[in-house]
């Protein structure tokens, strides 16, 4: 009986609205990856869309989104990414359920989401790298790091794990932070159509968003691309500034990681 109700809950997440969001989220994932490579950042940032959709439509939609992202990457970029679909799916589920538990409303919750996501990704991705590829895929800089660590510690599993952990902590930290900022930017009129335990979320977003509400409407209503991007951009800048000034843990974490990359 409980299994049936769980199944019903899962299928209820897949409304047409959510289904239409999935390609968009897959696009956001890929755009994040493309942008970080055009800006020459040493990161993937390919889970922003999954995190955003986990906040909008729930864990199972996010899992499907992660799966499709990797299938798409395998189709257009490199089939090497296909096995990593497993870690994307698990991450989507973990983020989705943590958001459902209300962790995305407070800063410490966001930090928890970040750590859990980085942990899940580290473990599954390293297992895949070791079991499927024997230690290195050769598609990014992590393989070089792994090779260097193998020379140092002479153990393949440990070096894969630690290089993957370093990479994931930085990458997922920034991903979750960006997704958090984006989710708070989304106008609540838009959010309200996705029923993710609606009332509590709405109340919370109300008091978070009250001052930027008008801008959100303006962005949603404006038809031309240029005019709609202007107020949003200003908002995000203001948000980032305001967010960093009290020195919240998430921002400290981000500053720290960015410093360490340099």
């Amino acid at each position, binding site marked *: 009986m409980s299994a049936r109700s769980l199944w019903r809950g899962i299928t209820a997440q897949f*409304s*047409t609205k959510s*289904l*239409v*969001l*999935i*390609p*968009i989220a*897959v*696009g*956001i994932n*890929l*755009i994040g990856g493309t*942008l*970080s490579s055009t800006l020459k*950042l040493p990161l993937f*940032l390919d889970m*922003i*869309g999954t995190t955003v959709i986990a906040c909008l439509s729930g864990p199972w939609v996010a899992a*499907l989104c992660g799966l*499709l992202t990797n299938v*798409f990457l*395998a*189709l*257009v970029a*490199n*089939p*090497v990414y296909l096995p990593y679909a497993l870690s994307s799916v698990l991450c989507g589920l973990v983020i989705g359920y943590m958001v459902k538990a209300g962790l995305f409303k407070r800063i410490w919750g966001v930090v928890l989401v970040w750590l859990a996501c980085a942990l899940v990704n580290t473990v599954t991705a390293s297992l895949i790298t070791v079991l499927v*590829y*024997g*230690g*290195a*895929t*050769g*598609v990014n800089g992590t393989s070089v790091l792994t*090779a260097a660590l*193998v*020379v140092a510690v002479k*153990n*393949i599993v440990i070096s894969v794990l630690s290089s993957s952990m370093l990479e994931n902590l930085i990458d997922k930290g920034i991903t979750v932070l*960006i997704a958090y*900022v*984006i989710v708070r*930017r*989304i106008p609540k009129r*838009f959010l309200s*159509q996705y029923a993710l335990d609606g009332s509590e979320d709405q109340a919370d977003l109300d008091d978070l968003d009250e001052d930027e509400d008008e801008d959100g409407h303006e*962005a*949603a209503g404006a038809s031309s*691309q*240029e005019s*709609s*991007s*202007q107020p*949003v*951009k200003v*908002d*995000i*800048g203001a948000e980032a500034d305001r967010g960093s000034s009290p020195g919240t843990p998430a921002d400290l974490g981000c500053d720290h990681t960015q410093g360490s*990359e340099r």
Partner: protein
Amino acid sequence: MPGPESNGIPDSPLARMHPMAKIVGVCSLGLATLVWPDFTLGLGIIVMLFIAAALARVLRPFSGVMLGFGIPVTLMLLFIQGCYSPRNTKVILDLRFAELGLEGSLYAAKIVVTLLVFLGSFYLTNKTTYMGRLVAALTQIGVPSKIGYLILASLNVVPQMQRRIAIIEQSQHARGLETGGGLISRARAFLPLLGPVVLSSLTDSQERGMTLETRGFGIRGVRQTSYLEVVWRRSDTVMTILFTVFLVLALMLACLSRAGMITLAIQWGGRA
């Protein structure tokens, strides 16, 4: 759903093949390489794949992908597994800082060959199949049409978002956003570029959802028809049977050789 992919595929026997037959091929070739005790079968299959790529007139991009992936991964794995695999006993090459072991090298070769077979056959399938045909074939065998929509829509959304992000990049440039310089300033440029794309795409999706609903996307209990007809021909049946027989043969031979009843492969001095 006509897209840019429909133009780029040269006509060839491989392109005319039924997409499902190709998928069966990918699985059977890959699994056969996986169960085979060493890398010789995979090497043969890779040569066959190159010939198939030449027949399908995609040899140039195909060899680009195979070499571009194959060479770095071979070097990496030879280094990691060859020098530091725990099962190394026999040393075949003494580098000054490490010793290249036979067993690890064989293991690395096996992995590389398996990966290349999967990658190559997948890439060939992908390059010679128009995505619309693949999705039509998938819905034919009973995959829900919503999944088909998701695949096609993802393929369409991404180029669209890329065009949009180019526009946003220009307009943010015009407002004085710096996208060059040090790492911090590049990282700071990330959000002003990503934010507008995400938000405008989200509002876009709302319209998409309504459009789809008015066309009966969410209707239950009705079998949707497809614009594209994919015909299953006799040659597809033949190819599918050939692939299956090949896989079964490879499985049997691999089992027999594991059990020690026959010796297939060259004895390399140690089991890989």
